[in-house]
């Protein structure tokens, strides 16, 4: 290993060219699943306008479409995109070509096929019934194997790195790569193969869902933020030690959580979950402070750089989602927020806000470099970027606020015996119906992005790159 690292680092363009096919298959598949997942979300949302909508067909009943929406977003979009961005970060930061290109490609194909079979299975009624772990049992093995194939190549790339100094992003990516196989195998073994008894299933399912969101996906999003903010500002990270401290804090405390207050589990578990969640305030503060100090007094890049703009928005969403998570478990609040739309709002903000924006920021940077292994990059259409940013931001904000209002209203009025349950739920329909606009805008945003992607591919074929565009401007 040490001998390897004494070798010359690989040039950036060569690294990018090396990982083109496997990463495009991971990211491209993820984007298509994002679109599918959002369409499922829209259909589920329309059920709140008319319960009879698509009610005659078992495949499109709310319970199944809701599970299919979560599964398409988590397993179709989020995990492969996290892998794609994570592997690229490991290559770039280790200054090494990606290892096992064919293996990753096979893994990506197998993963996407498994997700397709799994989502179809859920629509046919084969879902497991555990939130965030709805995948039918017959695809869990192939999902696990394909993730292991891809993650092993990531670890191998890291092992062969030619840059001695580790950057915090590498810690976060490795954490994510390592964490998922562990939680996924535990959940598969103890929920599907040899189901644990009674309420233990809930404990495992909550533990899985919490770790999947806040560790596996959260870590990759943070890795991307920690990489791009200093890089694009052209400054060093304020403090590497503080970032590693935040990593430790999030790994230790963030992984304890997800058990709702009052759950029929031993009381110490509820307390531990609450304490763990509240303690994440320290690493969250460390992350924000670190990046604030890094980016202080420099807002000019915000207007010029797409990746940076998406990344900043992702960071803000991450902060809000974490604050909401911490507030939601506080003893006086948890009784109001438990089992309402409040945690759903937080889920929406974390995945469609923080994670999706971090990934899109990374994609805007990575994809042109993957398509063209030189310094002369194809350019995105700036107008479509504006539209994409605007519609997605508005979509997430509308959905989030609608769910938040519905959640707080539901929690508040449930405590008042003057209102029947039906009255309260009919009341939540007002914000929920408004939230459908958000779902629609988000879909439009994704479509605009896919359009831009298609244009980028065409430009690449016609050789319209940064230099060509600049020359044309000069001539004009």
């Amino acid at each position, binding site marked *: 290993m040490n001998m390897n690292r004494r070798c010359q680092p690989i040039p950036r363009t060569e690294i990018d060219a090396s990982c083109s096919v496997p990463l495009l298959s991971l990211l491209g598949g993820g984007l298509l699943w994002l679109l599918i997942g959002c369409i499922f979300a829209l259909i589920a949302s329309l*059920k*709140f306008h008319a*319960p*009879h909508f698509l*009610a*005659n067909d*078992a495949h499109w*009943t*709310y*319970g199944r479409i*809701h*599970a299919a929406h979560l599964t398409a977003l988590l397993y179709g979009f989020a995990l492969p995109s996290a892998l794609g961005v994570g592997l690229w970060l490991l290559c770039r930061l280790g200054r090494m070509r990606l290892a096992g290109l064919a293996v990753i490609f096979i893994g990506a194909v197998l993963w996407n096929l498994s997700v397709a079979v799994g989502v179809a299975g859920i629509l046919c*009624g*084969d*879902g497991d*019934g*555990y*939130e965030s772990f709805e995948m039918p049992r017959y695809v869990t093995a192939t999902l696990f194997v394909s993730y292991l194939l891809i993650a092993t190549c990531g670890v191998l790339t*890291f092992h062969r790195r030619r840059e001695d*100094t580790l950057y915090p992003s*590498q*810690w976060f990516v*490795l954490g994510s790569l*390592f964490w998922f196989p*562990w939680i996924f195998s535990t959940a598969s073994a103890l*929920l599907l193969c040899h189901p*644990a*008894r*009674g*309420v*233990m*299933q809930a*404990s*495992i*399912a909550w*533990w899985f869902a919490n770790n999947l969101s806040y560790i596996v996906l959260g870590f990759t999003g943070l890795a991307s933020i920690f990489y791009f903010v200093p890089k694009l500002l052209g400054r060093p990270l304020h403090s590497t030690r503080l970032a*590693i401290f935040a990593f*430790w804090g999030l*790994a*230790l405390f963030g*992984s*304890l959580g*997800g058990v709702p*207050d*009052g*759950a*029929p589990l031993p009381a110490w*578990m509820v307390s531990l979950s609450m304490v763990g969640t509240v303690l994440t305030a320290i690493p969250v503060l460390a992350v924000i402070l670190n990046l604030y100090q890094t980016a202080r007094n420099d807002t000019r890049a915000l207007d010029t750089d797409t990746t940076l703009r998406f990344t900043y928005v992702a960071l803000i969403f991450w902060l809000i989602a974490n604050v909401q998570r911490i507030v939601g478990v506080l003893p006086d609040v*948890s009784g109001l927020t*438990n089992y*309402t*739309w409040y945690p*759903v709002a937080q889920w929406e903000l974390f995945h469609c806000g923080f994670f999706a924006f971090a990934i899109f920021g990374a994609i805007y940077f990575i994809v042109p470099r993957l398509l063209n292994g030189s310094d002369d990059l194809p350019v995105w259409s700036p107008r479509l970027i504006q539209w994409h940013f605007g519609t997605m931001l508005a979509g997430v904000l509308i959905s989030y606020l609608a769910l938040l209002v519905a959640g707080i209203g539901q929690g508040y009025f449930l*405590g008042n*015996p003057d209102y029947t*349950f*039906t*009255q309260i739920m*009919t009341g939540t*329909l007002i914000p929920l119906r408004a939230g459908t606009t958000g779902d629609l805008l988000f879909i439009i945003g994704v479509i605009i992005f896919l359009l831009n992607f298609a244009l980028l591919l065409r430009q690449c074929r016609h050789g319209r790159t940064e230099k060509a565009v600049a020359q044309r401007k000069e001539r004009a």
Partner: protein
Amino acid sequence: MNNGPVVFLALFVAMAGSWLAFVMGPELQIGATRPTTSIVAGMTDEIYPNAKPGAARQGAEVYRANGCVACHTQQVQPAALGPDINRGWGVRRSTAYDYLFESPLQLGTQRIGPDLANAGRRMDANSILVRLYEPRAITPRSIMPPYPYLFENHKITGIPSPDALQLPAGFTPPTGCEIIPLPEARALAAYVTSLHQDGYLYEAPPPVEKTNGPPPTAKISPAK
């Protein structure tokens, strides 16, 4: 800090901590729980909970397949925490005992519909079937979707079926027709009627009647 194995060791420690706390720990503590006879009320020898009948177990699969858990929880929060008991969703909080025979466990995390932990004590099979066929036949402004695919619309030939749904006025099928629940619907109704959490346990005793008298005094005075 620049050593790969150190990163992995650190990750292993953090991961193991979380795993020990939420998977191994509770498994050791409550994983081997068996039905108990320690029921407070009346101190009977009755065993709680009891295994579910076969139809209810089939119904649990229908419940899972249709994602009922997306809108219905099956857990009663303690009175100090939530309004569940006041809303009539249960007489006491849920405990780990209540779920010994639930598999797959459908605890749920969101209530778009009411909690079903004690649904079997509130509704009979026919009322559940009517709600599945057309929720608004019972709750006029219900936001629950109907499940017509769990029923069959039959032309009556000869004697009307005894299984036909008894629908309220305004929701009845055209004359000469009847709505027959499919086996899935009946299994689902059997499952929902089997849901109840009413054995009083030491960790969830019956609610204490509020009295106007003075609060009970401590029997043991502190040692001097």
